């Protein structure tokens, strides 16, 4: 039971920061939105990758799948999807506020449900793989989905789908989606915080440490693995649905299934912050996103090199990540202590 001992002050500060940030830095609203998305990425990746030890390189699949499901639902409510996509953007869906938000929330909801179903089916197949085979297998899923989406004309194929147009002004749209990302990230955090305090958290930790032992002890390992991946998929699917609407345009390579950027970022952020910890992914995502934005702004042309160096340093010299390092340095702060008082208890019994 990783009972969270974070002071409530930290939570209050994070909440205040989340609410105040768009008002203080109005020109950075989109970047801060993406920061919340990154935190959600790292948190959801860490459920399976960090806490359960199944390093997935294909979680981006659920992001893209959620985005497409949402797009299709948002359009299908108002018009024929096949006719809309075959117009190749020649037709635009202009809606009023009521219809727009009805479609949006229906889209987000269906994305969540569809992604859970995808995770159950895929998990049944993929989660029998272990170690590097799981990583490569899941990467295969993401890349295959991307190719399939690119050839499926009904959902727009390679030329993509134009999303319904936001009925208000751009600044207002930014703020609305900022709120959506913020709420999603906070919900994800609160959910995993609760999850890790239940038996489920211990069971997936046990699977990480020694799956064969966990099986020999009678733990329902497959059930736990599939549910863990489905929880990841649930939140990733919703985040994909929201992201598709922010971009306003969904296509397979760069927006829906960016396996080489977002798909890798989620792994890197968890490793950087310290995988298998509650706050590690949050810290990792924040540090990573700030470094990324700064290098993109001030080292343009060298940004990928800078990012590569960060990953190499992380993986070669700093595998335990920021929180992992802190835990190693001050184990007593995390309750890893010999209890001397126990001696009297043993003597008396």
């Amino acid at each position, binding site marked *: 039971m990783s009972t969270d001992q974070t002071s409530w002050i930290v939570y209050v500060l994070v909440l205040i920061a989340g609410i105040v940030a768009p008002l203080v830095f109005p020109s950075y609203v989109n970047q801060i939105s993406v920061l919340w998305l990154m935190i959600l990425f790292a948190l959801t990746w860490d459920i399976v990758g960090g806490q359960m030890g199944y390093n997935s390189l294909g979680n981006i699949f659920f992001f893209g799948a959620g985005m497409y499901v949402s797009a299709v639902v948002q359009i299908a409510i108002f018009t024929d999807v096949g006719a809309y996509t075959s117009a190749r953007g020649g037709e635009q869906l202009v809606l009023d506020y009521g219809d727009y938000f009805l479609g949006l929330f229906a889209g987000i909801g269906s994305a969540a449900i569809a992604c859970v179903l995808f995770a159950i089916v895929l998990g049944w197949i993929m989660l029998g793989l272990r170690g590097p085979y799981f990583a490569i297998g899941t990467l295969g899923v993401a890349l295959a989905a991307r190719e399939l989406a690119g050839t499926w004309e009904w959902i727009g194929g390679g030329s993509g789908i134009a999303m319904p147009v936001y009925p208000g002004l751009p600044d207002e749209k930014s703020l609305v989606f900022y709120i959506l990302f913020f709420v999603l990230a906070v919900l994800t955090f609160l959910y995993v915080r609760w999850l890790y305090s*239940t*038996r*489920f958290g211990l*069971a997936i930790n*046990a699977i990480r440490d020694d799956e064969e032992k966990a099986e*020999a002890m*009678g733990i329902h390992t497959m059930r736990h693995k599939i*549910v863990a991946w489905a929880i990841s998929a649930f939140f990733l699917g919703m985040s994909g649905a929201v992201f598709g609407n922010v971009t306003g345009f969904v296509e397979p390579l760069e927006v829906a299934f960016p396996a080489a950027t977002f798909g890798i970022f989620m792994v890197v952020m968890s490793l950087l912050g310290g995988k298998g910890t509650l706050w590690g992914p949050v810290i990792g995502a924040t540090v990573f996103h700030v470094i990324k934005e700064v290098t993109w702004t001030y080292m343009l042309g060298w940004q990928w090199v800078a990012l590569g160096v960060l990953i190499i340093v992380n993986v070669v010299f700093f595998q335990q990540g920021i929180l992992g390092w802190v835990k190693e340095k001050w184990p007593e702060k995390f309750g890893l202590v010999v209890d001397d008082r126990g001696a009297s208890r*043993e003597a008396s019994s």
Partner: protein
Amino acid sequence: MNSIIEVRDVSKAFGGVQANSNISLNVAEGKITGLIGPNGSGKTTLFNSIVGYHPIDGGSIKFENREISKLRVPQIARLGLLRTFQQTRIYGEMDCVKNMLISVPHRKATFNDMFKRYPSDLMERANHLLEFVGLYEKRNLLAGDLSFGQQKLLEFAMALMNEPTVLLLDEPTAGINPTLINGLIDRLRRANTEFGITLLVIEHNMRVIMNMADNIYCLAHGEMLASGTPDEIQNNQAVIDAYLGAH
């Protein structure tokens, strides 16, 4: 005395190596049964066959009169037939208390149980068993940071936490220093008498197994060589030859 495990004519080959051929043995309910034999005689293979780690080539294995040779590891474990490993296996990145808590029986675990917390009486039980094996002070340390002998004790405590009917122990005293061995023998006996757990023990330490077991089976070259009480086994010429090498 009832047999709680009945192994009948079990064979298992790995490629050309016949690890077990036509092995039969009975584990009497409530007793301690020993399994000895030289290295490579097929003891661990037999263990693995019983707990469903690999399919067997032929024969039958019954647990509480139920055929289990087609079941898989977690299913058999949930029936109450549990094993410990020769190479000690614990959850290294979790502290001892968590190792204990996750080892509760999963026999009746439903889907919703996954998301429950642990009631405080389980915590008390975990602490009690950690005390039983002498690890109470170290309960908040990561299991991976314990010494090998302590990990072995922790694994034993985890097995007790699971409330098994039968416990299969693969060399419980291997790698434990001689002074700790006496304590361990005492605890194994208490697990048998106080908790009523039937034991099937693979052991190389003759002093330990002869002291502890009610009945002993001896394997050699994948075949059952002899069985009987410790006294009978000690005086069996075939067993002596197998261990010392007959000419």
